[in-house]
């Protein structure tokens, strides 16, 4: 398992726990009101569940398991892969912070732009690995 995958999977598992925790609190709050501001957890809950858990886990696993190149670096250049991990998580933290702090109007779009760049890097890294080696010479 490459180091980039290791980081993405471990972070996504932590987000899975956080998503379950916020989801459980919200569900209990529906039946037994816990605190007036409990609904503020809702946008955090779904950003954490979708981006932090599902998307990050899938990206990390795909980077690890998809067919590797037969020549050169097995999974392509390493620097863009590290930037994929860093930008994804920086973008997600900015996005989550925008729901909690609301300090500037640029935090949420900035976070989404970082997530988008990370996903573009993922596409760049994975494109040639979506291949059948029977017909391609890599």
């Amino acid at each position: 398992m490459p180091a980039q995958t290791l980081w993405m999977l471990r972070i996504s598992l932590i987000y899975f726990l956080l998503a379950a925790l916020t989801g459980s609190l919200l569900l209990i709050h529906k039946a037994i009101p816990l605190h007036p501001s409990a609904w503020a957890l809702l946008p955090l809950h779904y950003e954490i569940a979708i981006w932090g858990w599902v998307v990050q886990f899938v990206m990390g696993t795909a980077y690890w398991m998809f067919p590797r190149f037969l020549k050169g670096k097995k999974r392509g250049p390493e620097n863009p892969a590290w930037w994929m991990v860093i930008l994804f998580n920086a973008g997600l933290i900015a996005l989550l912070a925008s729901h909690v702090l609301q300090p500037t109007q640029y935090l949420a779009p900035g976070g989404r732009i970082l997530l988008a760049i990370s996903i573009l890097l993922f596409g760049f890294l994975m494109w040639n690995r979506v291949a059948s080696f029977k017909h391609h010479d890599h």
Partner: protein
Amino acid sequence: MPTVTRFFIKSGMIYFVLGIVLAFYAELPGVRTGALLLPVYWHMLVIGWISQIIMGVSIWMFPRTKKQRENIESFPAVASFWTLNAGLILRFMAEPFLPFFQGVMVTSVILISSLLQFAAVVLYLIEIWPRVQPRKIPVRRRS
């Protein structure tokens, strides 16, 4: 493929179909329960389908520790499947009725459902966390 993986994947497929059907129904013109069904089909799709497929496939494909190789049907994985699905079923039976019934019965079902779902995630993490490891390259000894 471990039995628990088959359970996760097949259960995930059932929730996928149920989630899509319910989402389609909620969008039909004249259906007034759409807002009540929204959390139900969202959780059917994100937890019932996507998360269960991820959990099942990772339990199957991720490298096992030496201790885990002795028993591929490990307790945390099996317990995670049953607690998650019991929690989801209880949730889907009770959540849409919360605005109408606020009795002890519905509240207890929601509480139990919430705890079961959280327990399922913790059990899954107990199973999978030790398996997210860098590959150990064996050291070759000189003969």
